């Protein structure tokens, strides 16, 4: 009984980590631009593919390298590539709309369409067959007290917590983080302080995309089958998790991811797994209807 509980706890933390890292990306862009970046789930999907190609290349060409170094290099390059994609989307799709003062409806629709374009672009270029993510360093299974825990799971959870700690530090203790918080409160006055608004937006997209990149590699390692539509459901779930936790605040989005992770695992422990999403979302709906600002939602004005 206790071992089942512990096993479920680790699974919940692992899935919570994935949701949280993706949820933070929604939260950051929403905070700064008031834009729900519906393409973010597909940016995560693309990150998985970037990581797949980068890791495969390293494993093919630097065969002697120790796994952790390949992992580290893959991480950095995937973050760069995914940030590039995020910035490209910002530049060619969102910025022109912003410049024209387009209604938010058009911006949200644009985000949705970008998601489809990424999915189908990937399908067109790489074909329908799904790919297997390479194993960068061997999976080690630890057995204790009837619980099996892999080194991968530990890496996922530790990385998610570290990534959040770093993000929290950036947002709350640096100059650019202060500017991000200011933008989330009042965009209008930012240029009046001599601050280039676009630079802050660029930085925000880099942060959100990098988090998606980290999530992408770790997800690929943990669930190695990649397909172009893998980002859709997980992206929506992470978005819902962000809102339930309180999209107004990075802490809310982060914890929201874990709330969803826990709910899902608990539901699976007691019901047939086909009930998982049904019951999980009913619970989330109830949480939202009780607390429409999100679980950790604070006053309306704070948005990061």
């Amino acid at each position, binding site marked *: 009984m206790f071992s089942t509980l512990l096993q479920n706890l680790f699974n919940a933390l692992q899935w919570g980590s994935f949701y949280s890292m993706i949820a933070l990306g929604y939260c950051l862009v929403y905070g700064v631009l008031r834009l729900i970046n519906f393409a973010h789930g597909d940016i995560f999907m693309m990150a998985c593919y970037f990581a797949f190609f980068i890791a495969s290349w390293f494993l093919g060409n630097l065969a002697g390298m120790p796994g952790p170094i390949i992992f580290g290099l893959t991480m950095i390059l995937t973050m760069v590539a995914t940030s590039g994609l995020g910035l490209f989307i910002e530049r060619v799709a969102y910025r022109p709309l912003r410049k024209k003062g387009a209604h938010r409806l058009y911006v949200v629709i644009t985000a949705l369409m970008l998601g489809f374009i990424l999915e189908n672009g990937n399908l067109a270029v790489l074909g329908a067959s799904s790919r297997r993510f390479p194993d960068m360093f061997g999976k080690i299974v630890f057995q204790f007290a009837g619980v099996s825990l892999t080194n991968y799971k530990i890496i996922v959870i530790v990385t998610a917590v570290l990534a959040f700690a770093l993000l929290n530090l950036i947002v709350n203790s640096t*100059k650019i983080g*202060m500017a991000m918080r200011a933008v989330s409160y009042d965009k*209008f*006055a930012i240029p*009046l*302080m001599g601050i*280039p608004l676009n630079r802050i937006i660029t930085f925000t997209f880099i942060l959100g995309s990098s988090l998606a990149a980290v999530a992408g590699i770790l997800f690929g390692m943990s669930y190695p089958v990649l397909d172009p539509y893998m980002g859709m459901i997980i992206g929506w779930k992470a978005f819902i998790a962000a809102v339930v936790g309180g999209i107004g605040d990075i802490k809310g989005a982060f914890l929201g991811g874990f709330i969803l992770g826990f709910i899902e695992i608990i539901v699976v422990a007691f019901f047939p797994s086909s009930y998982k999403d049904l019951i999980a979302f009913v619970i989330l709906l109830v949480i939202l209807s009780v607390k429409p600002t999100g679980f950790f939602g604070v006053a309306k004005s704070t948005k990061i």
Partner: protein
Amino acid sequence: MMLEVKDLKVKYGNIEALHGLSFNIDRGEIVTLIGSNGAGKTSTLLSLSRLPQPDAPKVIEGDILFDGESILGTEPHLLVQNQMMVLVPEGRHIFGNLSVMENLELASYPVRNDTQFIGETKDQIFSLFPRLYERRKQRSESLSGGEQQMLAVGRALMTGCKFIMLDEPSMGLAPVLMYEMFRALKELNKKGITILVVEQNAKVALDFASRGYVLDTGEIIAEGTSEELSANKDVQKAYLGG
């Protein structure tokens, strides 16, 4: 001339808000633009600050020259970064989720490498507005309207710009605070800050400024020194209560 506005016409969408304004300001002056609701005062300042649409109207004719050079193509943050001019906007627009101190620090972005200037300016702001010092660690959302206005002026000073435009700094202030504000602005002017202030309250504005322009539905209908304008029969009737 430091600032020259020439035949400025601006539009919001299809609606023309200014129909060819011309005025100018020299270094060290205090100039006021007075006019009633909807006259185009805010539109004028927003046009000068070069904010993008839809925050500001679009300039369709005329020119804005700073030290003889057109700034029509200049991005708004560059006007501040290059220490040309800064706007204290209508409604203050302080960053309510940041503390008073953080608001000031953020505004020091254009002079971020000049720690001496930053330190001196903070001291100057706190001696002009001691209330801000008392509340320096407070979330600025929780300040009173008057204190927020002081913070907005403080922020403008922190940018290092020597030309400050203020959009109705007296709005919502009790008379005591309003006089405190104008006294502080006068003191700043003595230290070399050029001021363009927009006001509905013509009496206060003309007492404060040395020169003024009267704006009515997008056009300048009178101009002159404060004494001339205060003595002008039409101005008296429309703006000074007879």
